């Protein structure tokens, strides 16, 4: 019988622990498909961060290191400097990357650290139970912004791709989402480009995936996708913010 659908080889044969409607599973699969297509599983070392994706080390079949909260870019730097010909990626959430790990993120990018960063932005701290994230939207209700994020007190959400696109060391900064087949395909292409950039030694690539967190948003999976489209994408426009491989392709 012809195989029409199978699990990527780079993905372990264990069930994900993610909530229904969470987009981590889709993104994991896309990363694994790209690793398969590039044939680099044996050379790849992934760095899991702290957050819902902390168990990513169980899900990918390549070698994995589990980093402290926010330190994945530093751990990836150490790995990459020791293994310049291997493929090193981090998989980080918004609290990890844009709050506690912002210094590591900005400096890895500005050094042009030749790594690939998968950034899941779902505007909330998922694993600790739904606290305000650096990317939570103005007015967004969370456990620690129960009256809605008041920008007068809590400041404004950070647009990571825009910020990192100003740095010379960044090779690719692209924001995608996985709310539809079309967007999933765009996301996969972006992730693949991020890995190819590394193989071609172009520097730091970040693919920001605007994601859902139905559980902590208090919505059903369908409602969460709707909320993402209506609220997240307005504040976080999709697109390529920097791409050193595209002539005049910068947004």
């Amino acid at each position: 019988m012809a195989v029409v659908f199978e699990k990527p080889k780079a993905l372990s044969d264990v069930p994900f622990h993610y909530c229904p409607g969470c987009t981590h599973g889709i993104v994991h699969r896309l990363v694994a498909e790209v690793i398969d297509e590039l044939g680099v599983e044996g050379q790849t070392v992934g760095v899991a961060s702290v957050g819902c994706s902390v168990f990513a080390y169980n899900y990918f079949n390549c070698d994995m290191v589990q980093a402290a909260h926010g330190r994945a870019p530093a751990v990836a730097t150490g790995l990459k400097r020791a293994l310049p010909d291997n493929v090193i990626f981090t998989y980080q959430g918004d609290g990890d990357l844009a709050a506690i790990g912002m210094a590591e993120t900005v400096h890895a990018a500005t050094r042009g650290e030749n790594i690939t960063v998968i950034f899941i932005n779902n505007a909330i701290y998922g694993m600790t139970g739904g606290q305000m994230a650096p990317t939570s939207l103005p007015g967004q209700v969370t456990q620690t912004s129960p009256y809605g994020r008041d920008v007068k007190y809590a400041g404004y959400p950070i647009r990571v791709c825009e910020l990192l696109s100003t740095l010379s060391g960044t090779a690719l900064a692209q924001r995608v989402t996985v709310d539809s087949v079309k967007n999933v395909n765009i996301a996969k292409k972006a992730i693949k480009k991020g890995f190819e950039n590394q193989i071609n030694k172009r520097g730091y690539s970040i693919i920001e995936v605007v994601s859902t967190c139905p559980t902590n948003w208090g919505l059903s999976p369908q409602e969460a996708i709707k909320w993402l489209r209506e609220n997240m994408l307005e504040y976080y426009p999709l697109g390529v913010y920097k791409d050193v491989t595209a002539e005049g392709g910068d947004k």
Partner: protein
Amino acid sequence: MAEKVLMKGNEALAEAAIQCGCKHYFGYPITPQTEVAAYMSKRLPKEGGVFLQAESEIAAVNMVLGATSAGVRAMTSSSSPGISLKSEGVSYIGGSDLPALIINVQRGGPGLGGIQPSQSDYWQATKALGHGDFQLFVLAPSTIQEMVDFVSLAYEVGEKYRVPAMILSDGMLGQMMEPVEFPTKKDGGAEKPWATNGHQNKRKKNIINSLYIQPEELENLIRERYQRYEQIKANEQRAEEFMMEDAEYVVVAFGASSRVSRSAVMQARAEGIKAGLIRPITLWPFPEKFIKKSIPNTKKYLCVEMNMGQMVDDVKLVVNGEREVGFFGRTGGVIPTPAEVLDQIRKMAGKEN
């Protein structure tokens, strides 16, 4: 035998690390350890290695975690306030069973403290350099030659038992020069089948991790780690005994303060006081065997430290009330003088002038 050269402690240590195959250094500037970073930045590129000035101590120690995970010998160095920042990463290194090397060239604390030599990070190094149940193998050099020799020892022991190692130096040893000779070059260390360097489709995947959600699983892992600690305690205790054959008044001091104490002990002997010195070389494991052995012939102990009294607790634990254990310390960056220590030895021996 190699020719003796004059080198600063910090530079000698850095050269020793390179000669041990440490090709990956990650650091951040802080006085009085900056010469380590400066030396590495000059030498490592020529050795095909990596010197990287990190954006913070926190980043630097996590880069060491990454490079060590890759299976290479890596190192970071700092001084007291910077070591506090590194403590997060050190705990992860300990919890991930990685053998990284961390150098502390101590200065006065707490807070920003001062920049003069100190030993006030003894507790931090031996009891709690980071959260959780774990230990580092801690070596305290007292000469520039030991700054050299202990680098390979730290890597060897660290790799054998898969524990992080620390060389607890201080601003005096870091800044001073003495003649040193370097051992003949060594290889890059033990085999590291656990390294996450890409499985090349030839072995099962490796995971470097410190997270265990099931309490029983975590407990079992920690118990296994503590069995290794017991082996380290049994096999790796080191101390120097100076004029201890017939000593009745025993000074216990490590690192810089042991040098001052050695001078004082010699002067006390010249005055007819049967003084001796036990100099702990490993601070963890604490050289209990050496203290224990000395109890029967000792009348009194005196700990001399450049802090307000930290190692003295460990001496008291071993002596366990059988003898009086006194303490003399200077802190804040002040180095005690041999004359001050001699006075204390005289007092201990009941021979006050």
